[in-house]
């Protein structure tokens, strides 16, 4: 890890991810890490209403914006490493949507770093969810939530 004190890995992909493999990628070969916090966001079926979510993104900007958010988190919480992976395309209930892993010397920075990245990602990274209903109908685009804006504002 010479010269790479705080690696940042950002990926947008159709395929699933393995949180354990990704965490090992960040912690492997280093002995200064004392805390790893992994967050995985899953697709819900909303009480049986949904058959899938379809994730659209702005190629290029999605990766760039998540990268900017990760750099803010690294600086603010003195993280040792950060991974953010967001899936796109059609995702069925129970499947993974997003992964954030924050590595730090101590737990508070790792918890806060992962939480900060998720709160900013939800309101600033260019992704949009469309619902597909279990009965086959197009459920339309998900509305942005004010509670997500408030969650981000608490870091201001």
């Amino acid at each position, binding site marked *: 890890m010479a010269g790479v004190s705080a690696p940042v890995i950002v990926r947008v992909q159709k395929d699933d991810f393995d949180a354990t493999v990704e965490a090992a990628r960040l912690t492997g070969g280093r002995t200064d890490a004392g805390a790893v916090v992994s967050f995985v966001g899953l697709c819900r079926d909303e009480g049986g209403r949904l058959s899938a979510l379809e994730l659209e993104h702005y190629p290029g900007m999605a990766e*760039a914006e998540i990268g900017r958010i990760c750099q803010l988190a690294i600086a603010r919480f003195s993280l040792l490493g950060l991974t953010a992976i967001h899936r796109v395309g059609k995702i069925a209930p129970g499947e993974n949507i997003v992964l954030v892993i924050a590595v730090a010397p101590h737990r508070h920075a790792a918890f806060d770093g992962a939480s900060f990245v998720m709160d900013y990602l939800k309101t600033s990274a260019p992704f949009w969810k469309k619902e597909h209903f279990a009965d086959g109908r197009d459920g339309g685009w998900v509305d942005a939530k004010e509670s997500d804006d408030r969650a981000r504002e608490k870091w201001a």
Partner: protein
Amino acid sequence: MTKLVYFAWVRERIGKGEENIDLPASVKTGADLLRHLKSLGDEYAHALEHEKVIRIAINQEHVEHDEPILGAREIALFPPMTGG
């Protein structure tokens, strides 16, 4: 020519994901752009009906509506984001 790109319901309502367009010199800011596009047809008027809701990115970075668009290579218009 300026490249415009659209996403989610803005894309669906306009009926295309991207286009190259000649902008009149009077279009100086993001807000000017929205007003100009709304004059181009019902599909634009419908997509951009609630101007304050529309998010604007210039060269793949978020900007406010009063940001000058001079020299922009790519301008994106899209709804509030719902990822994560």
